[in-house]
């Protein structure tokens, strides 16, 4: 497969270069137009009335007073939804506007359009909803256990139970998906060294900076144009068509400037609402969530309760792993089934283990809905299995690096699903490279380098240093048999006598640099420097989701395929003009392998432009078996490993991450700067989960829906990084590339926690770590007794 990795670097700004992002300057100088900046003369402002209760029956909704307020154009409820009343990514179960019952705090109940956002808000406050409050189900164990089980959903769920011994099988259930994975003989396997542990992951938020927003413009044909920040235009459109009862052609979406996504824009937020208001009023309607509303307006990362048991021989070679992973999906399905699939199939990490039993559950509760977030099910499991690997290392008396190297998977290894890893899996090499990296200098004298920073809590007192390691595994692209494709249209033509290429896809740029990489591919494939990437919209076929680290792979693959098709047409023209031969397009010229340069590309375009549209698929995957998890579920795997160095003030429980080092195999660094950007950003998001980021809930209600109290790392928290990038080509992927975006988020969290454990000597079982976990033993969560289903022990959210 040397073709796919061939370096075609003779056209500047091509694959392997790091050309400047077209949107970079505008973003840095504050001139970039985000979706919240959209404006149109005569537009109305939409707002949403949300449920204050995590669970309540709706007796009645009175919109009379709101409608009478001057300046109000429309007040709509579930009665006004033109089409299907529910939507969803995998299963349509989320009401466009609540009817009958609200199932989480913040669920949309009514929408208003008015001439000013303040008028709209005041009108919303005048809507009278008569609620009959019901006690919410907020503990995921309670949701599935006995006798505390209460149905959140009326419809029957899958028949299963948390544990075969303890929880009875219920006739109906709150279980969204239960996925077992069985490999070898996990029930009978025994081992000399056994480590058991319970772990918890709190609810993380994507915390993108650009809140949910968009502008819906009604059209004369009864259709609507929607300008919106999203992750997948065509799937939004499909759901819009259902809810609006319109054919898809009548709904045209154009991507507006996206201020970050990280999974939070996979589900619909204001899309249907803005379109309903626009269609009802006949006027453009803009909706922008406030920062506070945004915390209610999108899904979060699933909190997890996990119980792991690792058995190994005296040398630390793994014999078996048994694991229970309970993911709180909140009130609606969202992407919980796929998150469960990832947690189950990747739940034991990048290790060779002869006997495996994993059970992953996703359950309904009255907590906020959880869905996609960078790392998608792999993050939660990695915190548990990497914590276990460190404990195993301690139990057998080897280093954390050594235990991972001894058990490392490699190309040819078999996953517990039976799937063979058929591309490089340099797990041991990543660890060895981390080991070889120099360590940072000792404690800084500068306050800014201390735990607590300029808050001046220590001048060195109580500060201990620790080093920790972790590695993770992530699937790239959509798994489990999903028909995952992208469409690209590529056109080459003369613009002012110069050849110019237009690339058009519906694939969404969320800040990761897809726009840049699409142009790079076109430059390399067509030998033309002048490339424009058209705005993403639904006038071209689906680009698939900007998620699962898949766009450079899949849309990149589609752009390359479309370029190849364009090239074939140009070669036909070259053959007519210069005679048959073996041609190449390089730096604006046409080269023949025999004669060298024979002409320029421009002359081939004199007879007109060439345009091709190609739908491109990665290799197919299979669903996994419901009972055993068997199946070739994944397209590709990506690996990143971290070393974290931390200073911990062990008396105050404050943490300063001194350095993060990362090694990641990216197959092919399409844009080396962008690769580094992803590794830095992903590591920062993992750092946030390790030491501060958590949506805190009490009885289903959010306590910290603001950036005042939902803390994300600042530049004083995120240390400098040392990064090594490996390029071991995946023969199945375009250019040999591997998805880059998610893996760094997965391993940075457990590496940091391991370092904090090393510094403090405290056996930490929960992220994010809070200061009291380090200094007050009574406040420390976690035990080794396992998660007993139905036992109303400590809740996931209560700190």
């Amino acid at each position: 497969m040397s073709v796919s990795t061939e370096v075609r670097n003779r056209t500047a700004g091509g694959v392997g270069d790091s050309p400047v992002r077209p949107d970079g300057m505008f973003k840095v100088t504050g001139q970039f137009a985000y979706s919240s900046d959209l404006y149109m003369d005569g537009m109305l402002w939409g707002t949403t009335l949300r449920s204050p209760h995590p669970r309540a029956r709706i007796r009645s909704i009175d919109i009379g007073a709101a409608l009478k307020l001057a300046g109000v154009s429309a007040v709509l409820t579930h009665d006004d939804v033109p089409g299907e009343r529910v939507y969803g990514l995998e299963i349509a179960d989320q009401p466009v506007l609540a009817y009958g019952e609200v199932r989480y705090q913040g669920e949309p109940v009514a929408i208003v359009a008015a001439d000013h956002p303040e008028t709209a808000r005041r009108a919303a406050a005048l809507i009278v909803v008569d609620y009959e409050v019901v006690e919410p189900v907020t503990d995921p164990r309670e949701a599935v256990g006995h006798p505390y089980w209460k149905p959140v959903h009326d419809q029957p769920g899958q028949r299963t139970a948390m544990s075969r011994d303890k929880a009875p099988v219920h006739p109906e259930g709150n279980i969204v998906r239960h996925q077992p994975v069985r490999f070898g003989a996990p029930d009978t396997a025994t081992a000399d060294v056994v480590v058991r542990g319970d772990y918890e992951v709190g609810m993380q938020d994507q915390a993108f900076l650009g809140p949910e927003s968009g502008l819906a413009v009604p059209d004369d044909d009864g259709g609507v144009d929607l300008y919106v920040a999203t992750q997948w235009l065509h799937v939004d459109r499909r759901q819009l068509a259902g809810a609006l009862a319109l054919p898809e052609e009548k709904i045209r979406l154009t991507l507006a400037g996206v201020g970050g996504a990280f999974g939070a824009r996979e589900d619909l937020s204001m899309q249907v609402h803005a379109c309903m208001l626009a269609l009802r009023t006949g006027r453009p309607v803009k909706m922008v969530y406030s920062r506070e509303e945004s915390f209610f307006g999108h899904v979060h990362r699933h909190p997890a309760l996990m119980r792991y048991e690792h058995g190994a021989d005296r040398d630390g070679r793994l014999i078996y792993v048994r694991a229970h992973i309970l993911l709180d999906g909140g009130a609606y399905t969202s992407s919980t089934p796929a998150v469960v699939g990832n947690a189950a199939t990747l739940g034991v990490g990048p290790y060779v283990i002869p006997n495996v039993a994993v059970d992953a559950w996703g359950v309904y509760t009255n907590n906020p809905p959880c869905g996609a977030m960078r790392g998608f099910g792999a993050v939660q499991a990695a915190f548990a299995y990497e914590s276990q690997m460190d404990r195993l290392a301690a139990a057998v008396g080897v280093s954390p690096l050594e235990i991972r190297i001894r058990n490392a998977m490699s190309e040819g290894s078999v996953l517990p699903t039976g799937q063979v890893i058929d591309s490089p899996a340099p797990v041991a090499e990543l660890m060895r490279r981390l080991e070889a990296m120099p360590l940072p200098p000792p404690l800084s004298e500068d306050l800014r380098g201390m735990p607590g920073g300029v808050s001046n809590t220590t001048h060195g007192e109580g500060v201990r240093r620790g080093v920790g390691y972790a590695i993770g595994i992530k699937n790239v692209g959509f798994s489990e048999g999903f028909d995952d494709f992208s469409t690209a249209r590529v056109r080459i033509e003369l613009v002012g006598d110069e050849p110019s290429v237009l690339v058009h896809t519906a694939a969404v740029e969320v800040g990761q640099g897809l726009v840049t990489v699409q142009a790079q591919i076109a430059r390399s494939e067509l030998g033309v420097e002048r490339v424009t990437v058209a705005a993403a919209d639904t006038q071209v076929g689906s680009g698939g989701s900007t998620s699962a680290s898949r766009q450079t792979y899949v849309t990149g693959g589609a752009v390359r395929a479309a370029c190849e098709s364009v090239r074939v047409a140009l070669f036909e023209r070259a053959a007519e003009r210069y005679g048959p031969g073996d041609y190449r397009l390089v730096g604006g010229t046409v080269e023949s392998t025999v004669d060298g340069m024979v002409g320029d590309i421009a002359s081939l375009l004199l007879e007109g432009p060439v345009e091709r549209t190609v739908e491109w698929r990665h290799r197919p995957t299979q669903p996994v078996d419901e009972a055993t998890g068997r199946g070739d579920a994944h397209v590709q795997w990506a690996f990143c490993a971290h070393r974290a160095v931390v200073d911990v003030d062990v008396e105050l429980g404050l943490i300063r991450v001194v350095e993060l080092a990362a090694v990641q195999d990216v197959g092919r660094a399409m844009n080396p700067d962008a690769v580094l950007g992803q590794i830095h950003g992903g590591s920062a998001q993992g750092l946030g989960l390790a030491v501060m980021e958590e949506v805190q809930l009490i009885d289903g209600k959010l306590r910290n829906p603001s950036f005042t109290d939902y803390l994300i790392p600042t530049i004083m928290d995120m240390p400098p990084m040392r990064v090594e990038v490996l390029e071991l080509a995946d023969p199945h992927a375009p250019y040999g590339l591997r998805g880059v975006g998610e893996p760094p988020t997965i391993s940075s969290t457990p590496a940091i926690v391991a370092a904090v454990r090393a510094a403090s000597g405290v056996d930490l079982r929960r992220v994010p770590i809070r200061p009291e976990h380090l200094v007050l033993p009574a406040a420390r969560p976690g035990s080794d007794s396992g998660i007993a289903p139905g036992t109303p022990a400590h809740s996931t959210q209560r700190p």
Partner: protein
Amino acid sequence: MEFFRPTTLPEACHLKSEHPGALPLCGGTDVMVDINFDRRRPEALLDLTDVRGLYEVSRYDGYVRIGAAVPYTTIIAELSAEAPGLAIASRTVGSPQIRNRGSVGGNLGSASPAGDALPPLLAVDAEVEAVSAAGTRRIPIHEFFLGPKVNALRRDELIAAVHVPVARGPQQYAKVGTRNAMVIAVCSFSLALHPDAARVGTGIGSAAPTPRAALEAEDFLADELAERWETPEPLPDDVVRRFGELVAAAASPIDDVRGTADYRRHALSVLARRTLEWTWAEHGRQERTR
């Protein structure tokens, strides 16, 4: 909403007496957050940005008078010798943007238990200069905080300045937050040694309904230091520990989204011990160089 932008203090006082419901705005770093979150819908805003006099720093009789609108950036740059506790505290506030706009006047106006400027003002017995159309009065800082976010200003009064005694000994401020910058205090502590008066001052933040002094701890330490001011050897461990315990005991913290009551008490005792050791060591250095 009406919007007033006076250019002189008398004009501002006049407007405030005519419109007692008008909300003063200095840097706006609290006011604008409240308005954007729709927590407040004042009938009018009284923007003090153009009242130049509020930005003045002046000195008299052992005091520094810091105009209400003087931003933290200025305090850090210019007052770290005269008001070191306040300067250290100012350094912990928000981000550079917030420190450029945010003011001690606004911190006093908000009277949040977590206001970072407030514990150091308690530790040095500062006074708040309140001004109205009727005249001026000085409110001792210990009488200024009446409840969570409630201060002793009358409805027609504005804060003109805060009067801070010039430091005659070492001062410290330390603040625990769950992030290394830009964070609201989980709890905080300020300590000022006053060797001339053989006294110490304290201020606790974010661990009671208002910022408050740890009076028993102050008395205990003053007694312990009474014979030691001129021969500042390192303090015995039990003195340091007891001081920490008394500071923690002076707090009445709660469990909230930022931390637990138990942790706050624990952390306060650590901060009290450390700030005591830092200030005492500095006092020792000053004594030796005298």
